[in-house]
């Protein structure tokens, strides 16, 4: 017999939408996003905070959602990859990831994009060093990171209104 553990109410906004859900004490944010809300764009590669595929933005900061208890997200404002493009189309980071082929297998892509979006949201003009720092916790097994770094820097320029 499995003892049903108590469920807790959590409220948070995800990509601007308010959600109320009942979750178990030990549930992670990643699993609530993926299983409860069906937002499977957030990937889980290691489930222990090492690979960064599950990176989302919580209260303005990039975090690894597989090691965030869902209940810690109570009251939080969360952005996932599904909320990055808007009615006007792709976000410049996404645009550059597509155009420069910074997307290879694509499994680390949502995490990379969220980590770099958190950076560009707070720092419109990052140095290459700052870009590397921002995605230092995102493992990519395909690209060797060259194209992602170039895509993020180019997106920053675009966001700054620089013609390219």
């Amino acid at each position, binding site marked *: *017999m*499995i003892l049903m553990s108590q469920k807790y109410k959590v409220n948070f906004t995800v990509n601007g939408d308010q959600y109320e859900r009942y979750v178990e004490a030990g549930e992670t944010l990643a699993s609530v996003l*993926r299983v409860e809300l*069906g*937002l*499977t*764009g*957030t*990937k*889980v*590669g*290691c*489930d*222990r905070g*090492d*690979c960064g*595929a599950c990176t989302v933005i919580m209260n303005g900061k990039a975090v690894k959602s597989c090691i965030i208890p869902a209940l810690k997200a109570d009251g939080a404002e969360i952005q*996932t*990859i*599904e909320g*990055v*493009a808007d009615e006007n189309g*792709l976000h410049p980071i*996404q645009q550059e*990831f*597509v*155009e*420069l*082929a910074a*997307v*290879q*297998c*694509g*499994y*680390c*892509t*949502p995490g990379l*994009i969220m980590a770099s979006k958190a950076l560009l949201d707070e720092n419109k003009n990052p140095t*290459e060093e700052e870009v*590397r*720092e921002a*995605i*230092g*916790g*995102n*493992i*990519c*097994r*395909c*690209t*060797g*990171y*060259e*194209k*992602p*770094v*170039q895509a993020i820097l180019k997106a920053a320029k675009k966001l700054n209104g620089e013609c390219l």
Partner: protein
Amino acid sequence: MPVNKYDVLGKRLDKIEARQKATGKLKFTGDLKFPGMLHCKILRSPHAHAIVKSIDTSEAFKVDGVVDVITYEDVPKILSMHQFLHVPEVMYYDSYLLEKHVRHVGDRVAAVAATTEEAAKEALKKIKVEYEILPAAITAEDALKPDAAQIHEEAKRGDKPVELKGNVLDTCDVTIGDVDKGFADADYVIERTYRTSKPNNGQLERTAVVCVPRDDGRLDVYATSQGIHAMRMNISHSLGIPASKLNCHRMYLGGTFGAHIHTGFIENICAFLALRTGRPVRGEKTREEMFLSCGRHPMIVKVKAGFTKDGKLLALHSDVTDDTGSYAFSGSSKMALTAGFTLSMYKCPNLRITGRSVYTNTPPLTAMRGAGNPQAHWAVENMMEEAAEDLGIDPIELRRMNLLQVGDRFFGQGPQVISTIRSSGNDQLLEKGKKLIGWDEKRNNHIPYPDKPWIRRGVGMARGFHTSGCGSEKPNAFIIDHSCATLKMNEDGTAQLMNAAADLGAGTLSAHASLVAEVIGLKYEDVIVNLGDSDSAPFDGPTHASRGLYGAGQPVVKAAEEVKQILLEWAARMFQCGPEDVEIKESKVFKHNEPENYIPVADVVRKGHFSGWGAAASTASVRPKACPPHFIAIFVEVEVNTLTGQVKVVNAVSGVDTGTVVNLNNVEGQMVGGLHMGMGYALIEDTIFDRKTGEPKNASFAGFHILTVKDMPDPDNIDLVIADTFEPTGPLGAKGIGEGVTNPVAPAVANAIYNAVGVRINDLPMTQEKLLAKIKEVEAKMDDLAMTQKNVKETVRE
């Protein structure tokens, strides 16, 4: 950069699925959900070698939500294999879905299907197992000892029982020419032993599968597989059901690098459970389970090479001891491949390969980018460098003078797959790489920071190749290499491709779309590639051996040519001219030199289809008759901290000869990605198992590190060279690229380290710790030497 005579090829094009991936919309296998879906978890052995004496699942069945629990007693008594690359006659059949005799920590003892993952996990805890623990052999050396425990008692190769005495599952001994005479004639003979490590594929997507029973009694299988037909044959064999009962869906893959050529058993187990329960069953490995089910084979490669004093290779003998882990996913073939590749790096008249493939009580190993070739490169390219130094010949020159040339034959995939070289960009790569890395200036300039003399720089290089596919001149009785494609035109002028090759993330399907667009004259956006399934796609072998473009692309070109011919004929009827008078460009058909007077391809298709002229469609099937090497040359500059042994790659040049560039973006992605993976192999990647208990010591990304962005050279310091070549046997002149780009990286780093600090580590990975120990050893010797010289001087003075 090659001159581009194509409309579509050679450009930077968005991958067809890139937007879906960048927006999180693309569903990978693990993202799928079906009503009533059960979750499968596997009970894994805590012991490296044991017999299950008793197993009691009664308590597990009582857990709420548990629907089924199976053990070795329940699974089909069919000895199975885990792949389907090779022809059935040479494949090894050595396991059951679940085992009574478990052979590594993490081996499969029982499986549960439950309504939730938690219930399944809970049930695993309730299964009572009594093990009889057997002595384990964790390394090849231990497994080869006369008193080593027997890891397998039965195995079949094809339908013939393998005579297993000890843990050797296969051996090879092939000689070409007269090796003894070659060595006797040589002025210089070098003999070295190299060891390689056991890196994990480490693709970010974990193995996942969902098997969904259909109303018609068949089963839909969604799996992280490199080949839908291979998966289908594999499951059908191990479950003893007809292939047509299974429909395997093609999924985009989150990497794999060879791990999913093989099944990880969980696919077969979920299929079995789905058939038993009549419900969809989903399985997904944990990251730890990934570390317990795939990885590159560690090998001991002994090389003996004989040269003339001018540097001509006269004889080469390579002896390979391959550790395949607990099951022969690809053991025998990796041994043969490494041996064959070792001999194919350079031109040499007298060759011998000997080898053995050995079972050990460690997780079964798979292919991993390079399939035996990184090991071959590690040995040969270290050896060449030492030989060059001893012979007093520039290392690049020594390589250049021994290159295989156009017209030479080589072993593509072991001794059975012989192919002839028809294109080579080797000279271009060596010349450009040498210039870009600054070879001549840097080889003798080791102190970049005068105030930090303990940091030394060095440059080094290594070259090599990988095959493009497994095609041989004559059909071989070793490996399956045959591809098909169906192409049809839609009434809106789009073309739709249905084939079965897998896209591992490299952009293979986009490349196929480019080929179609180029051949017919369509816009790239007008080509749709169906993901499809084994029900609807014609046969193809799995995507491996860098054959996704070269091999699977050939029928795509052929089908496109046939469809184009139909379109030209129909357009000619409409223009009332001959088909030779019209052409297609950018999805428009017009008479030569009259582009303004065009008919959209859509109108041509509609006219043809609605007038009963036929259907603009074709199915083509091709057996590639070669496996052309895509040549690679890697140059790196490193910085070695002689106080800590830490190595930083500061500059790198990756040069490839990939034939026609189909999509420049994808080619560059492979090049830098290959460099990254090769650097990890060189410096840090290894999975470690306790030598006695076989317990994994670093089965996570916290213990097994993959280089991060901060460990890579600045993007501006990576130069890419693409040779201008055309492969006559390839689809529009293209060859492969995916595996070659990693093969020479590790020895290039080794050679740069040697140039920097005069130290060579023959065992991968070259950790900071091994390096520091070696540096200290050399320093001590130098000190001794200085001491002796001083003493000598003093004695003389006295």
